[in-house]
């Protein structure tokens, strides 16, 4: 670890905190339907969209209607992606002549993109046409991100409103998020990325003759426009197989730094939206503080482990850290930081191969996802995931003093706690359950790339990533098989919707409650005690659920590595 490395990390944190307030201010205005500086241009388009699709923007929805609308929207999105993948051979924008994508792979990818997971069983440049990249993937990157944010906003409304039956209008929230938040930022961001060297072309793959006279086919495409939303919307599905490690998908140290910022930007700003909407920005800062504590602890461990390297490297006298599966222009610190960010958020883009990380360095991304990606988290999903833990923490605090717990003026009662527990328990059921199947079912075992405990970690990582809708991988695992295409899709589906539906049920039940003014007995939820309590609840619940699985994977591998065992 070096001072200059830590400076990069600190600079990153400062910028994220500095961005949270102005972005939060802007997004609050957008979701309240107030005027913004973009309204003169975008308002007519927005009104036109409502007119043509028959949306009455004044009509709000009950939480159940809101949820059904969201589900219908996803059914449509699924059909679009599945359709263009199966038909890509006969559709335009296919200069490389890619054939139809197989049924199970199309199914997996369609589920993967509507759930904001963007797990890559597809190979990008070797599998997909430009049309699929644009109409299938880029469009769903926008819409799954907009959906996540809309749901978080609906939950925030649940906390802030009193004695009403509605939580907003799904169609309006999605449209506003896409038009006013995602598209304008992406347009500017795309141009920045191209200025760094990212291709944006519909032309053919380039045939080059290298200096030594060999042939090299260089895949290009409309990369920048997709990468912008892939990062901003915490989607993470790569244009290329190697994702953000590919020099075209992340050309410079600056493009890398800005990509890291854009993963966290909206998620961090949503904590500010929460604070503003419930009438006290400090409530938002307290949540961001909980996230910050967990984040910095993770960064420190991964950075330390990767800078230390492996015993294999040390025995051979190789210094400079674990560079297997990392790019020179990023080095140890930017690769470690990226890995923690992408798994803390549910992004899943990678600029280094997590499979080749040291045992402990790779364990932190795993833990980040197993905690439910609540450290900033996926756009929207991170905030509603965190609020579920807040509900539990408040409940625990209430038990300790024997008083009905309350949070931002709302009584937290049996229904909310049950729903929060349901969402939190369903996740380990998926990733632990499927991992158990994956390590005994012979065709699944054959997919492991590494032997020993590392092979187990590959399987655990895959199902954790899918359940958490992250999408990063220990990519040695051969995921494009019938077993993994189907089981991972089920994990992604359950991980997304069995979290969303309970969260929306909480939103509905909170919105219907009366608001009670704080009294002398109210537990203050803006201070250090609250932050410590939430961190504690997250670590205890998380730790009890998945520590045994970690002991079988990365922990035993770390011990084996120190004893110079190889498999």
């Amino acid at each position: 670890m070096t001072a200059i490395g830590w400076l990069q990390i600190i600079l990153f944190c400062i910028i994220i905190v500095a961005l949270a307030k102005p972005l939060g201010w802007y997004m609050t205005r957008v979701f309240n339907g107030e005027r913004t500086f973009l309204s003169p241009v975008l308002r007519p388009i927005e009104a036109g969209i409502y007119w043509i699709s028959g949306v009455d923007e004044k009509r709000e929805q009950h939480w159940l209607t809101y949820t059904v609308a969201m589900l219908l929207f996803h059914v449509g999105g699924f059909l679009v992606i599945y359709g263009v993948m199966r038909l890509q051979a006969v559709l335009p924008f296919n200069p490389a002549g890619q054939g139809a994508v197989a049924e199970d792979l199309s199914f997996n990818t369609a589920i993967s993109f509507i759930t904001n997971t963007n797990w890559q069983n597809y190979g990008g440049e070797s599998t997909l046409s430009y049309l699929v990249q644009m109409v299938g993937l880029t469009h769903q990157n926008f819409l799954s991100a907009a959906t996540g944010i809309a749901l978080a906003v609906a939950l925030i409304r649940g906390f802030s409103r009193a004695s009403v039956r509605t939580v907003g209008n799904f169609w309006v929230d999605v449209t506003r998020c896409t038009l006013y938040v995602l598209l304008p930022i992406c347009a500017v961001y795309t141009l920045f990325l191209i200025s760094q060297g990212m291709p944006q072309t519909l032309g053919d793959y380039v045939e080059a003759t290298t200096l030594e006279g060999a042939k090299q086919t260089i895949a290009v495409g409309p990369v920048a426009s997709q990468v912008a939303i892939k990062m901003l919307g915490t989607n993470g599905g790569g244009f290329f197989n190697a994702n953000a490690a590919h020099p075209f998908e992340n050309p410079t140290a600056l493009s890398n730094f800005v990509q890291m910022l854009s993963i966290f930007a909206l998620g961090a700003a949503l904590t500010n939206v929460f604070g503003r909407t419930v009438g006290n920005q400090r409530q938002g800062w307290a949540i961001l503080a909980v996230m910050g504590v967990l984040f910095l602890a993770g960064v420190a461990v991964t950075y330390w482990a990767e800078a230390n390297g492996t015993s294999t490297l040390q025995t051979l006298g190789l210094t400079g850290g674990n560079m297997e599966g990392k790019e020179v222009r990023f080095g140890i610190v930017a690769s470690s930081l990226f890995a923690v960010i992408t798994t803390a958020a549910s992004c899943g883009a990678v600029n280094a191969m997590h499979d080749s990380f040291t045992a402990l360095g790779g364990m932190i991304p795993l833990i980040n996802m197993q905690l439910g990606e609540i450290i900033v988290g996926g756009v929207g999903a991170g905030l509603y995931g965190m609020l579920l833990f807040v509900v539990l923490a408040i409940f625990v605090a209430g038990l300790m003093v024997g008083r009905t717990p309350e949070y931002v003026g709302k009584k937290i009662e049996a229904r909310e706690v049950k729903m929060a527990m349901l969402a939190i328990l369903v996740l380990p059921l998926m990733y632990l359950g499927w991992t158990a199947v994956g390590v005994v079912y012979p065709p699944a075992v054959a997919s492991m790339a590494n032997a020993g405990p590392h092979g187990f970690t590959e399987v655990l990582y895959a199902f954790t990533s899918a359940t958490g809708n992250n999408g990063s991988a220990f990519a040695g695992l051969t995921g494009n098989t019938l077993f993994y295409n189907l089981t991972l899709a089920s994990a992604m589906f359950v991980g997304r919707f069995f979290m969303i539906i309970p969260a929306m049920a909480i939103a509905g039940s909170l919105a219907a409650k009366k608001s009670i003014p704080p009294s002398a007995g109210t537990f203050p939820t803006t201070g250090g005690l609250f932050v410590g309590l939430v961190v504690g609840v997250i670590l205890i619940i998380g730790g009890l659920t998945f520590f045994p699985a970690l002991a079988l994977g990365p922990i035993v591998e770390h011990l084996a590595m120190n004893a110079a065992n190889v498999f």
Partner: protein
Amino acid sequence: MLREIRPAIVLLLVLTAITGLAYPLAMTGIAGAIFPAKAQGSLIEKDGKVVGSALIGQEFKDEKYFHGRPSATLAPDPNDSTKTVSAPYNAANSGGSNLGPTSKALADRLKEDVDRLKAENPNAAVPVDLVTTSASGLDPDISPEAAQFQVPRVAKVRNMPEAAVNQLVVSNTEGRLLGLLGEPHVNVLALNLALDRAAAK
């Protein structure tokens, strides 16, 4: 609930058209106008022919060139399309080795490469990036130490003074952005092109 079906279909189609077609196509148009070379992939031409991309590494085996990092990229086996074969720097199928920290295959490969490099230049420590594969398999860069390590070999094969080759390495080294972001690196293709130009003089 039934009245949610129309927006589910129409709004989806409208937003698909905006975000999936209008946005990427508009960006492609603008990019072609403002950054034509970069939008096409930063291609490098020599004598009218494309020799590669400034951002994409390529394989160098010849002793007169600086070598890049090992690459773990694959290509379909020409004899059996269900299998893959090693194809270093395959820019149509990026990827890493994905070998873990306790992998025997990795340990064996590292040992072999370290021994080979030690024989080539016994006077310097082997730089770690010169024996590890990159994440993309297309890393265009090596560390300044990895370039320095190869200076004696290149100078000897080309009959050039080491100081002159060293000078080229230094002038092709890019430092951290603002002295802070990223790591110092040397673009191997750019360095080798500079080397060829210097030799031609």
